[in-house]
Structure formats: C-alpha cells, structure tokens
C-alpha cells in the first residue's frame, strides 16, 4: 500500500526556451500526486541523464518544440546507458502524428504531440512507469 510517489524529471533539452508546456505539465503531474523536478532551460542530454539518475526518477518528460525531438530522444536513451530500461522517457511538443512510430523506436515510451489533454499526459506517465516496474 505504502508505495512511493512517482518521481518525474521535466526537462527542456536543446536550445529552445519556450517552457509553457513544460511548466503546465509539471503542475498537472504535481496535482496528480507525483513528485516533479524541473531542470530549467537549455540542458544537454548528458546533464539530464545525470540528474535523472541522481534523483532516482521513474520517468523523464522531455519538452521539445524545436523539431530536434528524434535525435534528442535517441541521445538521451544512450546517455542513460544500462539504466535506460528503468526510466521511462516521455516526449511532448511540436511533433506530428506521423512521427510517433519513429519516436517510439528511438526510445520514447509515449509521445504527446501538441493538443494532448493533460489527463492523457498524466495517465500516460503513470502507465509508462507501471509498465517499467512490471517488466523489471
């Protein structure tokens, strides 16, 4: 019963500085009972991976509006190394539906393109974290 709260790192990789989506999602996850850490702007993926491991998070939420989502996701997966299977990567931002299969292949557990409802994001994070636990 006394399970620990889901811990999520919300991160803005790359150079884009539009963080409305990142903050709104952070508030929503927090209101849903999760612990949320926000990195701030312009983080490189190596640093994001480092913080994620240090903070022992269950999931990383990447917010990307610059169009570089595919390579950033792939590189974060790499940077997580052998722990990559323990931490779910979720990606939100300016991503077309057609790109979702490629994103999943690159290592994302779920993708939330522009227009996704907050309830869906919260549910998606929860489901991805549960799945990781079951797989372990």
């Amino acid at each position: 019963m006394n399970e620990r709260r889901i811990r999520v790192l919300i991160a803005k990789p790359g150079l884009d500085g539009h963080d409305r989506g990142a903050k709104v999602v952070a508030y929503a996850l927090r209101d849903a009972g999760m612990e949320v850490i926000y990195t701030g702007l312009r983080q490189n993926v190596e640093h994001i991976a480092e913080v994620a491991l240090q903070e022992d998070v269950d999931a990383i939420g990447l917010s990307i509006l610059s169009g570089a989502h595919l390579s950033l996701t792939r590189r974060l997966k790499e940077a997580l190394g052998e722990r990559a299977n323990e931490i779910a990567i979720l990606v939100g931002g300016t991503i077309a539906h057609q790109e979702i299969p490629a994103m999943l292949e690159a290592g994302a557990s779920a993708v939330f393109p522009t227009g996704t409802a907050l309830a869906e994001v919260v549910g998606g994070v929860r489901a991805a974290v549960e799945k990781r636990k079951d797989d372990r």
Partner: protein
Amino acid sequence: MANAPETRILQPSRMTSNDGDIHESEQRWRKRVAKLTVAPAKTSSGIELDPLYFEDGPHGELGMPGDYPFTRGVQPTMYRGRLWTMRQYSGFGTASETNQRYRWLLEQGQTGISVALDLPTQLGMDSDDPMAIDDVGRVGVAIDTLADMEELFAGIPLDRVSASFTINSTASILLAMYLAVAERQGVAAEKIAGTIQNDILKEYVSRGTWIFPPAPALRLIVDTIEHCVTHAPRFNAISIAGAHFRDAGATAVQELAFTLADAITYVQACVDRGLDIDQFGRLLSFYFYTHNDLFEEVAKYRAGRRLWARIMKERFGANDRNSQMFRFGVVCGGSTLTAQQPFNNVVRVAYQLLASVLGGVQSVFTAAWDEPFAIPTEQSAELALRTQQVLAYETNVPSVADPLGGSYFIEALTDKVESEVGAIIDHIETTGGMVAAIEKGMIQREIAQEAYRNQLRIENGEQIVVGVNRFARAEPEREHLELYRPDPQIGERQRQKLAEVRSRRDEARVKQTLAQVGEAARGTVNMMSSISDAVKAYASIGEICAVLREHFGTYQEPVAL
C-alpha cells in the same frame, strides 16, 4: 456533459443618462432584463462584461488620431495614409534558401521582411558549436558571419525594404551586420529602416534566449539605442515585446502591464546614460500577440497608446509627439492555434488580424495554419499573407481611423484595461521594479500559473475551443497534412560555409578586432564600434560572444515552478 452555466439576475442600476427619452427607454430595457437570467461573461483577462453598455461617461481622454494621448491612433488619417506593414516572420536553413523565400514573399506583395533566426544565432553560438548541432537552421536561418548576412539580403534593396529581426542577446552583433550590408549596398545609414527586437527582459521571463546577466545586457541595449540615435535615426533600436509573455500564458492585461514595465526600465536606463528622451524616444516600438477576445484586444491597444503617451510625457518629460507614440506590431496565432482541425486556425488568425487593425496596428505577422506542427510551407505562408490582403483591399475596414471609437462598450473596456494595467505596473514598481521581479522569478510564476489555469478551464469545458473540447471529431485525427520537413543536410552545409569563411579571412585582423571588443567590454565605452569592426573582419557570432561571455559572465536562471 457540459457544465450548466451559472446565472445571475441583472439589477437596474447606473442611471446616469440625462436625456429624457434615452433615459426612459434605458429604464424600460433594464426592467425587462432584470426579470431575465443571463449567463455571466468575462473577457480573457477576467474583466466582467455587462450585456449592454450605455452612455455613462466621462471616459478617458481620446484626442484626435495623431494627437496626444493617441487613444484613437498614432497617425492623423491612419490607413488612408498608408496601410500597415505586412511582415511575415520567416527564415529557415541557410541564408541563400531564406533569401529565396524573402524574394518570393516580396513578389507576393509582402511589404516588409521579418527575419526568423535559428537558436544558435540567437544564443551567440556558431553552427559548429557542439551544443548547437541539432538546432542549426531549424526554427530560423543560421547566421554565423557577415558573409551569411550579405547572402540573406542579396538582391533586396535595403533603402526600399525594411527588415525586422527577432534578436535579443546578440542584437548588437546583428545590427552591426545589417548596417554593414547596407553600407556595401551603398545605402546611407540614415536611410535604413528596420527593427531589432533587442528586448532582453522578456527573454529572462518567457522566451529563454538570454546569455548575459541583466546589467551588461542592459548596457548593450543602451549602446545600440545610442548608436542608432547618432548613426541610424530611422532604425527602431528596440521593440519591447509582450507577445512572448502572452504566448507563455499571460492575460491581455498582464501582457500590456509587463511590457510597459519593461519599457520603463529601458527608458530609465537610457536616461541614466544621459541620452535625450526626445532623441531616443522615437526609436522605441512595441510588439504583442493578438489573441481571440476581439474587443479586449482592441481595448488593449487603445489603452496601451494612452498609457505610454502619459508615461513618456508626464514621467520622462518627452515633448516630441514621436517619442510619446506607442507604435506597435503584432503577431496573430501562437498558442490560440490548435493541432486539432488545424484549418480552423485560418479563421482564428483572420479575426485576430481584424482586432489588430481595429486597434490601430502598424505591422502584422499572420501565422500560418500549420504553426502547431512546423514552420510554414510555401502554400500555408501564402494563405497567411493573403488573409491580410483580403482584409486590406476587400473589406473597407482600413478606410476609417479608430472605427470603434466612441462605442460605449469599447470606451468602458479601454478605461478598465488601462486601470488594471496601471495597478499591475504600480505593484511591480513598489516591489522593486521589473529586474528584481524577474530575478525573484515572480513574473515567470504568475505567467505559468495563469497558463495552467487556462489549460484547466479548457479541459473542464469552462472555456470553449472549437474542434478541441466542442465540435471535436469522434475519431482521432490522423489526416495527412502537407508539412514542412527540414533538410537534414542543413547543419552540414552551414558548417562547411563557416569553415570556408574562416579559411578566407585575415586572421590577424580577426584577433585584433576581437581583442578590441574585449577591451571595450572591460571599460564603459559604447560597444557598437568595436563590434562593427569585428563583424567587418568576418569574426563569427560565436567568437564575439565568447569574448563578451568572458567579461560579462552568464545569467543564472531562477528555476521556479
């Protein structure tokens, strides 16, 4: 299930008209509606709306168009004299690709250029910087050296076409490049028109392209303004932008208030430098988002003109009408656009454009319908431009200045926006001013919380978005859209070009001019002359910014949720 709207009973009140007949019919109307229940209505900023407005003055000062306090517009005949500038934000890939797009847009009847720069350029990084790899040429054009700027404006006469740059931290460098290109085209600096955004404070809050801490960043801004006063007096040295607050979640009232608070900070910094208000005041312009609440947007722009005129005249002692004028550009689109049923965005943008023109705008960028997904294709960009041309040439809307002036509703709403904005500015100033509010993360938090509340209102159905929470399609949307796809070779091409420029240039001259930039940064002289020399020696943005970073340091963001 939709929420049942709350209802309230209207009470007869406000009997202020002194005309007997009007008074009587007004009383009859009030009695009638007192028995009815009506849904409450608010503007997007939360201002409560009556179902009908009456003559209940006195209202705030109007003046004539072109006269203080410019409530009715900054030009005496407004669009009869000249239409607003149609300026589509555009840029991608390398300078030569973007140059082609500009020429095409000008052929299509666009009347000004708005340069979208890629993030490395905005952040003072070269295209071969390891941090920049994923972002070269993505959200705008990559500019590393003067060679790119020359190519960007090849065949575009800078004495006839003005360019506006969305550039902030590195604005001084881009300005130096632009003036150098004009010089090479043989155009005198005093004839050069255009704009650099050059507004760092809002970057700390909501757009994120900051590099240096506030004090040296403000110094660079005052340097560029001072440089334009003496060398390029027709160039708008700063465009103080509320647009990015708005798109990050601020209400219309917050947007205007935070923008004016920023503007006060910049003007004070110029005054502290010893610049004459009536020499630099005319170089200031503003930039906003127009969102969907049509009349509130009109009121926002009318209130903005009145507030700014008063601030410049009464607080800073500006006497020249050009320094008291609140001239502004807008962007229509942004966070109001939806990924669901994306063609609806064309309609949203058209209404926002109408609101902007009714509000007396000077230049407009209408975003394309595909903005929620990508930068525009040639087709979607064309439709966005045509949206402006239809309003300009087919509707007769531009024929009369301030067509809503004197409307009971608009005048009441203008007054209300003005007083609410004034209260926020007062609050910021009594708590230590805008820089302190930003360093404490106060403005950032207010905007983010507003964005969250707004999202919750949409998700619980309180705020209707057509195609999203009302009239949505039953099946998830998976239609095939023709979207812009970035060329994966862009980064490589730009890096090759940069390497070529580096191999051709005179390295000794680069070293020497960069050393002079460092020396200027250490002292207190205006930075523009040394930056211009470095630019003309083909020093890159990354090289110049490395020197500046060394002396100015970098900003530490207060990360606050």
